[in-house]
């Protein structure tokens, strides 16, 4: 089963979508973007709720464009579940015309046995989404679309259902398009992530590729990367580049890793945006980091914030360049972080990603 979107375009009065090209095999493609970026439009087009102005959508080689919803064999889980309020959970799951055995099987899989005879208004948000998922799976769809099914749930339930979805998706053998505006959900559930903005796909790749090697500033920012600095290439060797950022110099790893965005062609003197994902940065005691290895920078803590499980710490290394990263509480305590204290910032060369200036949007 492969879902293929080719040169898909549509437009509304104030919104242009596309052209979008995507291929989803038996995997989960998480579509990540801010509200109004066209995520839901993408799902509507695949589901058949709206028709494109041009382009094609094929599922296993069969063209879907022009076919009505009911003839597409594409299952959709709506944001609020869209359960039929006048039917019990059991009737909802059985709606596609499946037998009792299948309903029982799905109820067991999604832990719904206790709520099958209740009506949707009496179910909790998490239960509603489970019923919606069971109802969609009951129809045995050839592709599965999910429109932010976790967005209206409380954090603990969201986390638990996210884990369950991860296991469920692994057991499915169909293309899954999962739309979300939450980077954590996208990286947790997506085999690959597609970042969308203003109706176009900015970047597609594995979660680590998208997080560590964003192709532009928007992708970097939207995946939680605040560490974006203007820099200039000062030296290049066959193995790496040196980039001047403020008062500091950063060394990159072998350029092969970053060929995709044209780093190979970066000459000495080129302007670049330096991107370092916060998760790749380590903080250390400035005294212990004497020899430090590559890219050991010393700076001053300018602010920190307790975010529940982690501390968010910003360390300025001079000339307004401040690296932000998260540290676990034990590390935070061990380092004795406080505003104004000195800290070493360790940036592995392979975490230093360069975005060439022309790619800037």
């Amino acid at each position, binding site marked *: 089963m492969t879902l293929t979107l080719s040169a898909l375009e549509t437009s509304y009065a104030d919104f242009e979508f596309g052209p979008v090209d995507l291929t989803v095999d038996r995997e989960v493609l998480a579509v990540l973007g801010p509200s109004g970026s066209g995520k839901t439009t993408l799902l509507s087009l695949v*589901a058949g709720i709206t028709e494109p102005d041009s382009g094609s959508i094929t599922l296993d080689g069969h063209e879907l464009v022009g076919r009505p919803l*009911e003839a597409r*064999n*594409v299952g959709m889980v*709506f944001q*609020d579940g869209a359960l*039929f309020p006048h039917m019990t959970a059991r009737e909802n799951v059985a*709606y596609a015309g499946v037998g009792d055995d299948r309903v029982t099987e799905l109820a067991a899989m999604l832990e719904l046995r206790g709520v099958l005879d209740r009506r949707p208004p009496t179910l909790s948000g998490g239960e509603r989404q489970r019923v919606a998922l069971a109802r969609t799976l009951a129809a045995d769809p050839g592709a599965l679309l999910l429109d932010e099914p976790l967005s209206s749930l409380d954090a603990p339930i969201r986390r638990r259902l996210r884990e369950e979805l991860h296991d469920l998706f692994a057991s499915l053998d169909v293309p899954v398009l999962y739309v979300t505006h939450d980077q954590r959900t996208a990286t947790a559930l997506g085999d690959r992530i597609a970042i969308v903005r203003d109706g176009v796909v900015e970047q597609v790749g594995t979660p680590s590729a998208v997080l560590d090697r964003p192709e532009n500033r928007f992708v970097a920012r939207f995946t939680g990367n605040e560490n974006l600095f203007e820099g200039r290439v000062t030296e290049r060797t066959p193995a790496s580049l040196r980039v001047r950022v403020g008062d500091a110099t950063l060394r990159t790893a072998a350029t092969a890793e970053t060929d995709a965005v044209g780093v190979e062609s970066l000459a000495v003197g080129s302007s670049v945006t330096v991107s370092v994902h916060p998760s790749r940065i380590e903080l250390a005691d400035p005294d212990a980091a004497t020899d430090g290895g590559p890219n050991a920078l010393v700076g001053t803590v300018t602010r920190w914030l307790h975010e529940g499980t982690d501390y968010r710490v910003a360390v300025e290394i001079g000339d307004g360049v401040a690296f932000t990263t998260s540290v676990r509480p034990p590390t935070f305590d061990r380092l004795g972080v406080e505003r104004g204290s000195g800290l070493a910032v360790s940036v592995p060369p392979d975490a230093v990603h360069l975005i060439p200036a022309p790619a800037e949007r």
Partner: protein
Amino acid sequence: MATRTRESGVRSVDWLSVALVLGGLLVLYYVAPLASLFLSASPGAVLSRLGESSVRSAATTSLLSASITTVLATAFGLPLAYWLARAETRWTGLVLGIVVLPLVLPPTVGGVVLLTVVGPNTLVGEWAAAAGVPLTRSLAGVVLAQTFVASPFVVVTAKAAFESVDESLEYASRSLGKGRWATARNVTLPLAGPGILAGITLAFARAIGEFGATMMLSYFPRTMPVEIWVSFQALGLDSAYPVAILLVVISVVALLVLNTVARNPWR
């Protein structure tokens, strides 16, 4: 007028009391004439008058014509209501305006308008009369007049009922392999049902009470409102009471239906 002295000593109007008095007077204005109507005629007089053939015939004509009107208004009104609720085109505003027009038009004007199309000297009227179905001074004429003024209630109320059904429920049903008709039958109609029933009940009540357009189009066979008018003109108010009481009873029953099986749009 109720007033209250504040701590500051400034006397201010107690607006809640004022509102209650104003509202109470209005309710009294509705109830008093109805109560007075029922007190104006003795039960014996009512029963004997209701036994007269002219009254029985008027009641039959009214019930029959209002029933046919309701069926027609529903059959033609529901598809239009659904289209108005779901279509995303600027034409819906214009069409809705046209649908509401009979509601704001004086009924007699409605009758005049209809006469210009189906009157005895018009093309349609002559053709229908030649075919043996005269459109004026006939049951068909009564139904035409009632449909003109009553069917908008079905369209407007059902439109609101359809709009209250979340469109994503229809998409969900269809993505589960059910076609448009199965989706309408299983999802849309059951959920919009109470609202639609309210529209149908309102249309029936309006059709039963229709007078102005009916007078213009079809004085005969007499409906109950026409019978009341004729009795009032020929024999005075007393002879109009029993028919009026019958009409009030039918209207109250319609309201009861509205409040029990249907969703009263104004509750």
